[in-house]
């Protein structure tokens, strides 16, 4: 789908690799290390993608929250050794978020068992995203979500 991700040193000194946005302002793809600091880096990626949007804009705030929660999931449940790739694509009426971890597949039943904490984050994602899903297998795990510009009921 997107082969433009930079693959440099395993954990680059600068956590952020801006590879897509220079060519296409509506798309950004970054490789982040599997560490808690990457959650803030993921929000910063949203800020970069929506640099022209007012910081208090509801859509921007919601997208930051969804990206933050999904990134947290990848850091907490994903492989501690493999880079996490975050892809953000801006469409007319929504943004598509995709977070890919090349590590071990996530056991869905295990994820559910841990719901006491992980569940709260996914509840936030569920409330904001039109839909989200986890695709897990030998190639790794991808969590994707579609975040609408406007929530139902908003004008």
């Amino acid at each position: 789908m997107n082969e433009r991700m930079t693959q440099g040193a395993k954990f680059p000194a600068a956590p952020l690799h801006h590879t897509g946005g220079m060519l296409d302002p509506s798309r950004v793809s970054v490789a982040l290390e599997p560490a808690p600091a990457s959650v803030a880096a993921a929000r910063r990626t949203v800020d970069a993608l929506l640099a022209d949007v007012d910081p208090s804009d509801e859509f921007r705030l919601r997208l930051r929250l969804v990206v933050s929660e999904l990134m947290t999931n990848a850091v907490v449940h994903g492989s501690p050794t493999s880079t996490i790739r975050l892809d953000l694509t801006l469409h007319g009426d929504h943004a598509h978020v995709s977070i890919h971890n090349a590590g071990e597949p996530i056991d869905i039943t295990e994820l559910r068992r841990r719901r006491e904490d992980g569940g709260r984050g996914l509840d936030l994602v569920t409330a904001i995203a039109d839909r989200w899903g986890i695709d897990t297998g030998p190639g790794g795990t991808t969590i994707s979500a579609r975040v609408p510009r406007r929530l139902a009921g908003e004008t």
Partner: protein
Amino acid sequence: MMNDPSQIPEPRIQISRPAPDAVLVSLGGEHDLSSSRDVEKALTESLEAGSHLIVNISDTEFIDSSTISALLRAKNAADAAGKRFNLVLGTAAIVERALDISGVVPLLDVVASVDAALAAV
């Protein structure tokens, strides 16, 4: 432009004692997974140090589910120890929204200010 780390306000945690039995934990900036352990520790220690724990998140610009979980655990610990807990909320839209969506606002004894928390005995 986007690599400037100063774009994201650092998470801040301040602890003070506004009244003899009360301990105030004030959070500022953006809080997420990377600060949740420090927040948890500050809340746990502050609860042990007084009989009334007040957590002020008015100056936070972002909190996530790990912060919300830490707040809930502190509230539950306060209940279990027979101590008082208040959350001071008067804050960024997304912070309020995250708390709203999580359905935890009614559980966290929310007040409008630190003074209100101290007055409401």
